[in-house]
């Protein structure tokens, strides 16, 4: 703690702003951690069974994943004040036919877990 304070003081005195945010000469810039983990499971509203192959995407963004055998999905998304997730059945009737659904996330201060139920067509 005391050391950190001393570091900050020396940093201020040398009037250079980036001493704690360095990058190696052949390395990348620092990651400022501007994302959050979004996880969840997609099930059928009628049967309660997990649905495979549902496309989970972020609206206005190219990112997407597909649900696995257990209907589960997991990905990191860019942190923002609000995020719209889109759940789409894209594999025709291969794993059943379901109505698309949008979910708006507003509390993005921490990682998110979602239970999504899709209605059958």
């Amino acid at each position, binding site marked *: 703690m005391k050391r950190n304070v001393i570091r900050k003081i*020396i940093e201020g005195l040398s009037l250079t702003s980036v001493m704690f945010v360095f990058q*190696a000469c052949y390395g990348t810039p620092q990651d400022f*951690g501007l994302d959050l983990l979004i996880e969840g499971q997609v099930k059928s509203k009628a049967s309660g069974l997990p649905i495979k192959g549902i496309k989970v995407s972020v609206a206005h963004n190219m990112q997407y994943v597909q649900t696995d055998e257990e209907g589960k999905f997991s990905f990191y998304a860019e942190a923002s004040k609000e995020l719209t997730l889109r759940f789409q059945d894209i594999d025709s009737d291969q794993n059943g036919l379901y109505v698309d659904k949008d979910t708006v996330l507003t509390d993005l201060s921490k990682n998110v877990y979602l239970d999504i139920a899709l209605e059958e067509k």
Partner: protein
Amino acid sequence: MLSSIKKYCFRKFRDSETKRHELNYLFWECTRRCNLNCLHCGSDCSKESIHRDMPAEDFFQAIDTIENIPQNFTVVFTGGEPLLRKDLEFCGKELRKRGFKWSIVTNGYLYDKQRHISLLNAGIGALTISLDGLKESHNWLRNNEKSFDKVINAIELAASSKRINFDIVTCVNQKNINELEQIRDLLILKNVKAWRLFTIIPIGRACHNSDLSLTDNQFVQLLDFIVKCRKSKEIDVKFSCEGYVGKYELLVRDSYFFCRAGINIGSILIDGSISACPNIDRAFSQGNIYTDNFYEIWKNKFQLFRNREWTKIGQCKSCEEYKDCQGNGFHNWHGEKNNVLVCHNGKVENAMKVKNLLH
């Protein structure tokens, strides 16, 4: 007066960081395979490598020895070309589970839309892409006629994501020194925010090509270009931290020169060696993850990195700038280590002497 106080404070800061010796930045040389065959490769990488890729579990076993993970701890995947690893996203997710951030250094050739999405999904946070000139000069250095188009595509993808903190690096050489302004304009057009400029150190394949090194005058031309760009503030341009540049310090970067290799920067190399930046002479390895506890080595060894008095040899022995330079970037000590490979400040001073004589 103010400048002297700043320098004094910075030296104190550097000494305190050296004593503290906190691991903040870890390179993982996850493959030595590369899809390109660049003329300047300091690692002598090629399509086939005698080293097999390090299994992910070996790497995780090593880093799981790290105690009290420092804030902003980052793992940087390097190579070879990291995108050749099919389990890159798996490794990235595993790192995030452990609370580590991660990033990659890439030549951009394999960075297409699908890979961009899967890397974002896996929690990538930063990226460095190499662009070494306009089409002809880039493809010449990269030894591949499609490389420029591929890397421009990669840059456009990276620039489209607010999530990724990315920059472009350019190795300045005889072929591209006179097109820096055009490269800058191209990067601005592509919405790139940060650009780092390097010179090429004569190690690996770079030893064999005289077109790769800059003359003293060209080196000063490069630094003057960076100074000019930084004034205009259209894009964040800086000189890499490869070496001490005397009177140009703070004019070409945000902070004074400080080689943090082995002080805050460590690496796990392809054969398990524990070292600092991957371009450092491998004779400096401090241990091996297959025989040693990684974090014990980090904490208890690395003396040659933390006390650089041994670099007071050759032209550094009587140099007046030594207390600020401390033997230049650590990767400048190869082979017999009787003298620094490149003295950046020496190049600046030589160019100035010639200029003064002419006037």
